[in-house]
């Protein structure tokens, strides 16, 4: 019996490990462990050091990413489950830089709030580790593990202000929605595994694509997986957690969730669509189309009547997710420009949205709230912040010559290039929604520049150095991407993901 078993098991072949390809993940893992060890040794005495070590860790992780980019070769490990190509490297760089800016936003916020600091940065690093792993994941198991590695620390970070009822509620809603979504996604993955007999995305694509109708198992699997990720990117009708969680969570974490976590959801979705389901665009295109159209319309319409800045940014983020989904709805027709448009939008969105949250954090240092009415007369007591906020809001609205304009232009280009009825209608949706969005972004601008400050309180606000540098970084990126569109165009001219048969 035992001999029989031994015969059935194939010999173990030691996988070839390309240490250079895995270097970003290993570096970040080392620094994450280091932060934890500092906490174990020094407890709270080391709290001054942790944020410094965490930011050094992120910058150190950039080094192997840059050397891999200079090297330029596509690398693949574990039979194609872990792939490093241009697209993966761009997204890794976005995650690392976003994480760095979030640490800049956090240092004063967390230190002044009397909360645990060591764990905060350790969890932040774990979450970012999950994200950069996600950029390379081309296998159902790897994608699942990466998704949980980035979500589980995020649940804790959203609940960080643990004595605050609002933060509890925010974390609870985020947790329940996130767990439910990942359970649904897992069920879809199990069906896909059953329909194809493999967990590798390339094998799945090979076995489910082809002429003829897809089997019911495959259709259900694809839909469940897309629904699972739609929660992650907060697309309507799976967006309900986003505004509540954003409002209750600590604001730096809100910035992190609305940029990095959303980008990670998009990365996973793009891995799935462009590698796993590539031959099944007849199934996924309509689903994505509906999600995109609903997200931008509903997100913008609800954003019109918000009175809280964070909630407004949450709904605007829902609408932005709709714009980013739009090219994916024509991904089967024009895969190259769809991928480039969405990746380009993600890069620019990261810069402008992080900037907007940086201003919210800076203003809240004085007003202690995020009500839009408190932004009245901001120009009189914080002219620098007003200029920065105007730049970010107009970039989000897509006004030239700021970054958002170029990003939206590329989206329009991709959906029109598809030259299908669905693509053209989607283009109209994007155009109409941009006009609606302009209204609420401009309304804030008017309040900041033209109205008097409440109670004539024009005492200036003290903005710490780290927050200022975060503002300068994001504002510079937002303007640079707009003025030099070639820059982002060149960077995000990613060829189709490595590993697709096309």
């Amino acid at each position, binding site marked *: 019996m035992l001999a029989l078993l031994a015969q059935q098991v194939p010999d173990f072949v030691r996988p070839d490990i390309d240490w250079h390809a895995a270097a970003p993940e290993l570096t970040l893992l080392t620094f994450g462990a280091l932060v934890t060890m500092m906490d174990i040794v020094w407890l709270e005495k080391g709290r001054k050091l942790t944020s410094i070590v965490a930011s050094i860790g992120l910058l150190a992780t950039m080094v192997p990413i840059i050397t891999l980019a200079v090297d330029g070769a596509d690398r693949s490990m574990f039979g194609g489950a872990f792939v490093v190509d241009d697209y993966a490297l761009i997204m890794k760089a976005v995650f690392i830089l976003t994480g760095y800016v979030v640490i800049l936003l956090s240092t004063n916020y967390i230190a002044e709030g009397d909360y645990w600091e060591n764990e905060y940065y350790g969890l932040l690093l774990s979450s970012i580790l999950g994200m950069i792993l996600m950029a390379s994941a081309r296998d159902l198991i790897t994608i699942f593990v990466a998704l949980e590695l980035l979500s589980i620390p995020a649940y804790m970070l959203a609940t960080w202000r643990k004595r605050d009822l*609002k933060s509890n509620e925010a974390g609870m809603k985020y947790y329940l929605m996130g767990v439910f979504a990942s359970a649904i996604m897992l069920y879809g993955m199990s069906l896909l*595994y059953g329909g194809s007999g493999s967990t590798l995305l390339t094998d799945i694509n090979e076995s489910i694509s082809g002429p003829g109708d897809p089997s019911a198992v495959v259709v259900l699997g694809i839909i469940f997986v897309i629904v699972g990720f739609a929660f992650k990117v907060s697309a309507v009708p799976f967006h309900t957690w986003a505004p509540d969680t954003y409002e*209750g969570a600590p604001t730096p974490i809100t910035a992190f969730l609305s940029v990095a976590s959303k980008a990670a959801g998009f990365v996973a979705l793009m891995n799935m669509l462009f590698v796993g389901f590539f031959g099944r665009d007849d199934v996924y295109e309509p689903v994505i189309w509906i999600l995109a159209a609903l997200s931008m319309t509903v997100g913008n319409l609800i954003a019109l009547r918000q009175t809280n800045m964070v909630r407004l940014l949450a709904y605007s983020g829902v609408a932005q997710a709709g714009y980013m989904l739009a090219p994916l709805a024509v991904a089967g027709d024009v895969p190259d420009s769809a991928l480039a448009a969405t990746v380009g939008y993600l890069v620019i969105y990261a810069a402008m949205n992080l900037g907007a949250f940086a201003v919210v954090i800076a203003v809240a240092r004085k007003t202690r709230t995020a009500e839009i009415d408190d932004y009245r007369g901001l120009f009189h007591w914080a002219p620098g912040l007003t200029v920065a906020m105007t730049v970010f809001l107009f970039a989000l609205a897509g006004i030239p010559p700021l970054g958002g304009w170029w990003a939206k232009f590329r989206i329009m280009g991709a959906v029109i290039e598809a030259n299908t009825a669905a693509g053209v209608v989607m283009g109209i949706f994007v155009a109409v929604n941009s006009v609606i969005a302009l209204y609420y972004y401009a309304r804030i601008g008017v309040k900041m520049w033209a109205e008097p400050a409440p109670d004539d309180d024009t005492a200036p606000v003290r903005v710490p150095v780290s927050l200022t540098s975060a503002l300068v970084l994001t504002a510079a990126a937002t303007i640079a991407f707009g003025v030099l569109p070639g820059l982002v165009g060149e960077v995000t001219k990613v060829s189709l993901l490595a590993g697709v048969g096309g």
Partner: protein
Amino acid sequence: MLLNQFLVLAAILFCIGVYGVLVRKNAMLVLMSVELILNAVNINLVAFGALNDDVGGSVFALFTIAVAAAEVGIGLAIVLLMYRNRRSIDLSEADMLKG
């Protein structure tokens, strides 16, 4: 064929789980419902793995079990926190954030 029975069982578990998540107001019961869905996933994975004579399904199931344990650990901690602060884990009472 034997596979059908496993898939039907998994589908029933999945439906009960989704129903529980959508209807229940008690945070603990919602957590348990999510566990039902995850168990449906595990049954599916193992059944498909046995059908295809592929060990990948069982490996995936092992990962699901381990990660689900981590997830539930965090979930219980959040429920506990909520109970400490407001003496109730009724989700319909958690309505401070809306608009």
